């Protein structure tokens, strides 16, 4: 068996004003795998993502990707050097840039022609070619979501982190966007960790689901296992 793409061991992070605690979180993720982390609010899901992304520096434990140490007791690679994509809960699109320039933002090291080509391709993949010149606030919620994903994916990260990506959408759009996101991830064979508190989201997109509580991963199993379990107890919330 191949070594995992990402492996997180014994991650600790103390409570701050904004973020929750991590108390020995561990997880592995394979190439191209979509893992959903589910758990009650305040369980440390977001902090886990932020540590993997490099936005927070864990106090203890290590994060490795592709055999490279991203973070351990001695070193901590800054977020811009990790090659990880991140979709924020509020999306954090740049309001002063057009859709096209939002997507191009992460490609500043490429030549102009190459960059334009990549942006065009990416917008086509997410189906937003005709919105290239619009500003984010002129788009619908679902469209904005796709811009945020395209902006990260255009850099061809091998890992995407998504923090509650569907929570701001209404029920109908939600299903569409969910399918769409999954399709895009699969197109590039991108692995992803998606944080949510919604069971329906979880079972629809996940290959595997990790349940989190009080700063640690308490159980990991295939989406199938959870789906069966939850359909037996449809009214039990996590």
């Amino acid at each position, binding site marked *: 068996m191949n070594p995992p793409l990402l492996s997180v061991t014994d991650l600790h992070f103390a409570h701050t004003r904004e973020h929750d605690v991590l108390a020995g979180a561990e997880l592995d993720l394979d190439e191209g795998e979509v893992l959903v982390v589910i758990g009650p609010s305040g369980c440390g899901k977001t902090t886990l993502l932020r540590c993997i*992304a*490099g*936005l927070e520096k864990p106090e203890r434990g290590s994060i490795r990707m592709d055999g490279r140490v991203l973070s351990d007791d001695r070193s*901590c690679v*800054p*977020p*811009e*050097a*990790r*090659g*990880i*994509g*991140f979709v*924020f*809960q*509020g999306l*954090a*699109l*740049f*309001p*002063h840039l057009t859709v096209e320039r939002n997507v191009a*933002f*992460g490609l*500043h*090291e490429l030549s102009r022609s190459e960059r334009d080509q990549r942006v065009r391709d990416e917008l086509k993949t997410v189906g937003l070619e005709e919105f290239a010149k619009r500003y984010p*606030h002129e788009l619908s919620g679902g469209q904005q979501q796709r811009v945020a994903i395209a*902006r*990260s994916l255009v*850099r061809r990260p091998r890992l995407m982190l998504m923090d509650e990506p569907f929570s701001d959408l209404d029920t109908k759009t939600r299903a569409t966007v969910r399918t769409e996101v999954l399709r895009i991830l699969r197109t590039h064979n991108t692995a992803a960790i998606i944080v949510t508190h919604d069971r329906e989201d979880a079972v629809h997109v996940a290959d595997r689901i990790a349940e989190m509580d009080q700063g640690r991963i308490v159980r990991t199993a295939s989406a199938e296992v959870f789906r069966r379990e939850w359909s037996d107890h449809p009214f039990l919330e996590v």
Partner: protein
Amino acid sequence: MNARVRLSSVWIGALALFLLLPIGVVITSPFHSSAPEWNHVAHSILPTHLLETIELLLLAVSMAVVFGVSAAWIVSSFDFPLRGYFRWALVLPLALPTYISAITFAGLIGPTGSISEVVYSSTGLRIDIMSLPGLALVLALVLFPYVYLPVRVAFSAGMSPHLDAARMLGGGGIRRFFRVAMPLARPAIAGGALLVAMETLNDYGAVKYYGVRTLTAGIFRSWGGLYDVGSALRLSGILLLLVVVLITAERSVRRRAGQEASHRPVVRVRLLGWRSLAACTGCLLLFVFAFALPIGSLLIDAERTIENARFAQFLPALGNTLFVGIMAATVTLVIAVLLAFAERRSKERSRLTRWTSIGYVVPGAVIAIGVMALAGWLTNTTGVVLIGTIGLMVYAFAVRFLALASQPLNAGLKQQPRAMDEASRLLGSSPWRTFTRVNLPLLRPALIAAVLLVLMEVVKELPLTLILRPFNFDTLSTKVFEMARIEEWRDAALPALLIVLCGLVPVLALDRLLDRRPR
């Protein structure tokens, strides 16, 4: 954190320190300079001067708050004739330097003022604005826009849902004002009041002329009268302590109230009959007293002296004023941007950069002592002569006015969600690229506001310019000063008007800028 990033924060820390040095010289004066007359100063000057400072402060700030808040409330929640004009016209007094306004008011309603004379000969009543409460009124009339502007923005942008809710619950206008609008606008009021307080503490020209004994006057009394610079510096230290108290108070008020921005404009109530007349008259009176009256008087004086005026003298002075102003505004902005960057990067607000704002309340002449002491030391060690260069003047202006540039930048940055920075970092941008490509473009209105505020103040500034200027370098404010000191107020009217004119442009631009609704 990589080494490059850490290096840049070291540089920025050094920059902050560099700006704090002259003030450090002042604060640490008890340890390095003797104060032979301190005994007398502490017993005979400090008590009276501190008392009158506090009296003046309380009166001026409370009047400015009353003027500013009520004008902002009337203009943003009611419709009445001329409302659209008053809305921006009430900002104009900011362009008047306090000393010019004070002298002009003395000429009108001082003991021998032209209006006082008419009143006395017809009614036998003597009017005299030249007293402590009178000075407080004059200061409040000039400075109230510092409250009016932010409060107006708060009233019109942020609180429509709350006000609508209050209306649905049957709150009348007055009730809505005191129960909902005032508490919600508290941070804006506190911020404005702090600026008014700082300007009041810093004033010397008006205070001296009106014979009011403030701490700043005490500083000059020790320096010029007792020949004791050491005592003067110690008094400046006490002045700084007072400011620290004020800043802390402002922060605690700000912390207690939060306000989310709403983009829906407040629906204004159309006033009819006497109410409409009252609103219109109120605004008109405020405008007339704060701006039209002093300007009118200056215009009359300028018209009388215009045939003898030497424009050949004023034109270079105008050029110098604009040159130094733009130079200082640019440099101050660059420094403020670098400090804002440092602040944005550190999660905790850096103490060092916070303190750099304190220069705003140190009297200009005292900053000049600190700046000159540093420059003199540098000259003695390296041989580079700095005193009398524009560079040193600009440095001193940056020390003094950095707060004005930093404040809008930091306020603007606070409104940008951190996720935006993080998104940029995760898209492969360095912190600096994040700052220049994401934070700064979104800050454009704040950047313009920062430049304009500094420009406006440098144009009005006097003592720093006076002491640090190169040979044969006149600005408009030094011209006003020369004429005012030989007690020829009328000759000072023309350059004074030019100062106001220079100030009007940034003031109006600022007004427009603050008005723009967020996207």
